[in-house]
């Protein structure tokens, strides 16, 4: 049987490359009724901030063609409550945990990273510098290579945990941001976060979402995500985690073929809560049938 293990960072070996995308997996426990979440490569938590955050008012989600817009606004229970009430549950479930973090400013990011530094049971941090739905929470860092690099350098200093920086697709040249944060000490990159979009409520003459704009996710964005992963893999030498519209093992394999070291499943979790484990198994079957011994032989096998 094919060996699905992937090494994201020296020392951070995941049992397989299938992770849950932040904000689409709650804090993990809800999925435990559907499958053994310990079987995922890792569970990435909803984005966490130093203090609890209540998120955006009004309508927060709306469906678009093969996609959805969300403007949750990074609602979360705050890092303290997470550590007290959620992390232990995840650990009991046997999950490998990656914590997604964000802050209002550089100090916040550094503070939360420092706080998590020595916490037992956290495998890595994913730094969200790309949420389009709140002024804080990243987008202003994520679209400018220099600010992004400064932020990552600050977080780098605050923790010894492996750092995955999550990039925004709402940029002219994602490779510039990618290189900048790689140089600033990020151990890996994950991309893409959502594309900024708008939906209109024609009858009521107003934006559907309370926040006006929202983040576009789902199958609709897969071609853009694949393209960006393809570009970034060529631009940096650190591992890249692919995200965007993945809804089947084939989708996941496409990202891996392009060179992603792992992938995250987002919106598809909402439609089928078991999709995570189905994709793990689908990847295994696909590679077994084709007699791969290790998944790392498949990763990046795109011919050009």
């Amino acid at each position, binding site marked *: 049987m094919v060996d699905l293990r992937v090494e994201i960072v020296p020392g951070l070996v995941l049992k397989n490359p299938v992770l849950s995308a932040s904000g689409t997996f709650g804090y993990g426990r809800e999925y435990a009724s559907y499958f053994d979440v310990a079987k995922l490569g890792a569970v990435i938590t909803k984005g966490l901030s130093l203090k609890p955050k209540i998120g955006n008012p009004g309508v927060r989600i709306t469906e678009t063609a093969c996609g959805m817009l969300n403007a949750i606004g990074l609602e979360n229970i705050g890092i303290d409550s997470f550590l007290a009430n959620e992390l232990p549950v995840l650990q009991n479930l046997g999950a490998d945990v990656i914590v997604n973090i964000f802050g209002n400013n550089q100090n916040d990011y550094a503070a939360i990273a420092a706080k998590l530094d020595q916490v037992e049971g956290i495998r890595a941090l994913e730094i969200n510098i790309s949420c389009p739905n709140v002024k804080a929470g990243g987008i202003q860092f994520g679209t400018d290579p220099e600010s992004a690099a400064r932020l990552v350098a600050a977080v780098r200093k605050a923790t010894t945990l492996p750092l995955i920086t999550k990039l925004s697709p709402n940029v002219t040249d994602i490779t510039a941001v990618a290189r900048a944060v790689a140089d600033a000490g990020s151990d890996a990159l994950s991309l893409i976060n959502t594309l900024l979009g708008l939906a209109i409520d024609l009858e009521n003459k107003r934006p559907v979402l309370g926040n006006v704009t929202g983040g576009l996710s789902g199958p609709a964005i897969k071609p853009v995500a694949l393209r960006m992963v393809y570009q970034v893999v060529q631009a940096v030498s650190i591992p890249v985690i692919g995200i965007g519209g993945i809804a089947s093992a084939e989708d996941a394999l496409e990202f891996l073929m392009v060179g992603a070291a792992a992938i995250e499943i987002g919106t598809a979790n*909402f439609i089928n809560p078991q999709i995570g484990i189905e994709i793990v198994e689908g990847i295994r079957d696909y590679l077994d049938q084709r007699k791969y011994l290790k998944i790392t032989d498949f990763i990046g096998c795109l011919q050009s």
Partner: protein
Amino acid sequence: MYLFTGKILRNRQLTSDIRHLRISAPADFCQQSAPGQFIMLSCNDGLFDPLLKRPFGILNRGENWFEVVIKEVGKGSLQLGEMKEGAIVSGHGPLGNGYPEINSDLNKDDLTPLILVAGGMGIASIASCLLFSLKSSIKAGSRVLLYGAANLDELLLLDEMKESAPDIRIETITDDGSSGRQGWVTELLETELQQYPEALVFACGPEPMLINVQQVLRKVSARGYLSLENRMACGFGVCLGCVQDVTGIDDDGTVESAKVCTQGPVFPADKVVF
């Protein structure tokens, strides 16, 4: 919670745009479903338009089937509503917390009077109380369904409810006076609460109606539950898309946000902050 595929066993047209579907389902799912709970449904496996499953109240259930009423308002409900017998749907449920269980022992004298209030498609949720739990526990007079709709044609499932709960009193009211009085269902509620101030109220309907119900209940300090229908992406508590401001879930009176899908859709009426 179960993920399953079921078959359309029956698709009955109630009005030009409302369908009553019976769908096959695993016995465990059926057994565990309670009035006021809902199910997420889709019928286009492998295709992404529509993308998300859609929430519908579980109207009724038997040993190996359940029923929903679907009003065709957009592409998802249209696709589901137009399914033919034999077609396959994916279901995820039962989800959410339904109406609280109420004393249904007819031998007890202190049977709490119950007022069910439905507006429009809210009947899908409210009727579930009559179709699969209160069946035999209606004491004449003490239990009533107040049902408002746009017009006579939009008053759904009356025969089914009467058959299932013969002793229920049903009062209708319509926007155009084509059945019952012309007016709002909350007018009926006020009258009813004058007679039964100690009654428990279950209400489901459009938000303006629920706001009204809440005000009426507050005015007479009556107890009640409201079933909400916020937009949902996941239905099981992981997207935070469906939140509603509520007070005092932790009983300290401060406003916090609750997930309608897992903490609701049925909430104590006095806790909902519209």
